[in-house]
């Protein structure tokens, strides 16, 4: 492991340890936050009782569907939009402002359109995450060296062959920035929807525990969510490294 990597682990461990000490010594009130070790214990308890799986399964299933669809549709949308520079110019401020608006407040609208099932939640996730992919696709294609596009024409590629064989591999790196954000945004959209209205899922369970003053369960669920997102993110980073293996010095 690199020196920076070891230091990173030390820093993270140090932060967790000081949080543990602060909580245990009473610097942080136990009713405000429970120590990290307790959070792990809470996760273990939740797992043993089967509640963890029950609460988190719908959320992670929906997030996965939303994330995959957002990436696919986002790449297609970004590629199409890039070929329409006039439309893109006009849409630019919208693409930039998009995240600022809590569109998940339109959840009731989605319920009317898609019915009372998982799809309103998934759609919120797709809509929220897809734009990050569109933006990173656009940025990526902007930076493809023009000479590679000329090469595509020398090989007499069709439009789809050009996208598949040249543009997608060439934008893989900037695209991954968007893909990682898409994971975050599909979680934000779906958790927000669950906080607001849903009757299941980990967001609902966190809100329920909060309202019931069940600190231990609440922290267990929050910690579990954060750990899982971090693990998923690290998985994406590993994919990124694998994909880019050998490409840079």
């Amino acid at each position: 492991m690199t020196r920076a990597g070891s230091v990173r682990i030390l820093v993270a461990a140090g932060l967790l340890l000081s949080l543990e000490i602060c909580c245990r010594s009473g610097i942080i009130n136990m009713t405000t936050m429970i120590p990290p070790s307790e959070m792990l214990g809470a996760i273990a308890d939740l797992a043993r009782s089967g509640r963890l799986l029950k609460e988190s399964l719908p959320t992670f299933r929906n997030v996965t569907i939303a994330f995959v669809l957002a990436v696919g549709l986002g790449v297609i949308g970004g590629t199409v939009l890039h070929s329409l520079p006039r439309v893109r110019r006009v849409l630019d401020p919208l693409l930039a402002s998009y995240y600022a608006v809590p569109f998940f407040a339109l959840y009731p609208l989605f319920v009317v359109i898609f019915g009372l099932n998982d799809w309103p939640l998934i759609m919120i996730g797709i809509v929220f995450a897809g734009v990050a992919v569109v933006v990173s696709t656009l940025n990526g294609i902007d930076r493809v060296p023009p000479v590679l596009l000329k090469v595509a024409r020398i090989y007499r590629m069709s439009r789809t062959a050009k996208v598949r064989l040249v543009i997608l591999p060439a934008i893989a790196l900037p695209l991954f920035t968007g893909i990682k954000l898409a994971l975050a945004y599909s979680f934000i959209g779906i958790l927000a929807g669950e906080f607001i209205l849903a009757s299941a899922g980990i967001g609902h369970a966190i809100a329920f525990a909060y309202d019931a003053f069940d600190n231990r369960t609440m922290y267990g669920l929050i910690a579990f969510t954060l750990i899982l997102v971090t693990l998923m993110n690290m998985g994406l980073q590993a994919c990124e490294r694998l994909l880019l293996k050998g490409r840079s010095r």
Partner: protein
Amino acid sequence: MTQSTAAVGKSRRLQDFALLVACILAAWQALYMIVGDVAITSPVTTLGYAIELLPSSDFRPHLAASLTAFGNALLISYAGGVLLGLTLGFHRFSGEVAEPMLGALYSLPKIALYPIILQIFGLGLSAKVAFGALHGVIPVALFSMNAVRGINPMHLRTARVLRLSSIETVRTIVAPAIIPEIVTGLRVGFSLTLLGVLIGEMFASQHGMGFLLINAINLHDVKMITTLIFVLFLFATVTSAILLAIDRRLHVRV
């Protein structure tokens, strides 16, 4: 010749913009006609309600509360983010240690943290400010750090050859090199801080636009939801367009 062609380009862009607005309104109207009053109000109704709502004394304190919280959160995001980013950028090793951690924090769904923020700060201004800053500070820091890392080392060597003092070096070489990227970070930070503040208001406050929004959701006040989203969308898009224009201008100059 130059002026007239530039004017043609500008008027065409205005035309395109008008067309976009028309398309959005048409789509909105069509959606309204399909789903009806239970889910969304029509553009005309919404606009009318917005004009009625915005100056009313019921609404103004909430607007003021949101702007206060947003201003404070933005200040913290910007100051903290730039400071952290510059430090990590100039101190290479710290940057190397911190970058993946910042990246991981950037992609955490911070919305899940709202109960914790509530526990720590209680209902009120500090909770929303904390929530906004939590969202904004990381992208600002990441962009600032990468701005510093992207300084062309040849330019720094040129500064040494020209025997510039460190103040002159910062003024003539470092600042022009990093400012455009930092401004991009500030632009992204602006949007995310706004989102953070609004989420904070929705779940951890009893004042502000976010609070009105969650209240309207709970009361199923469709007119209010649509109008608030419309107003927020307008505000975010106009400010983004301005920031984007500044951003573009700075990037062209480099």
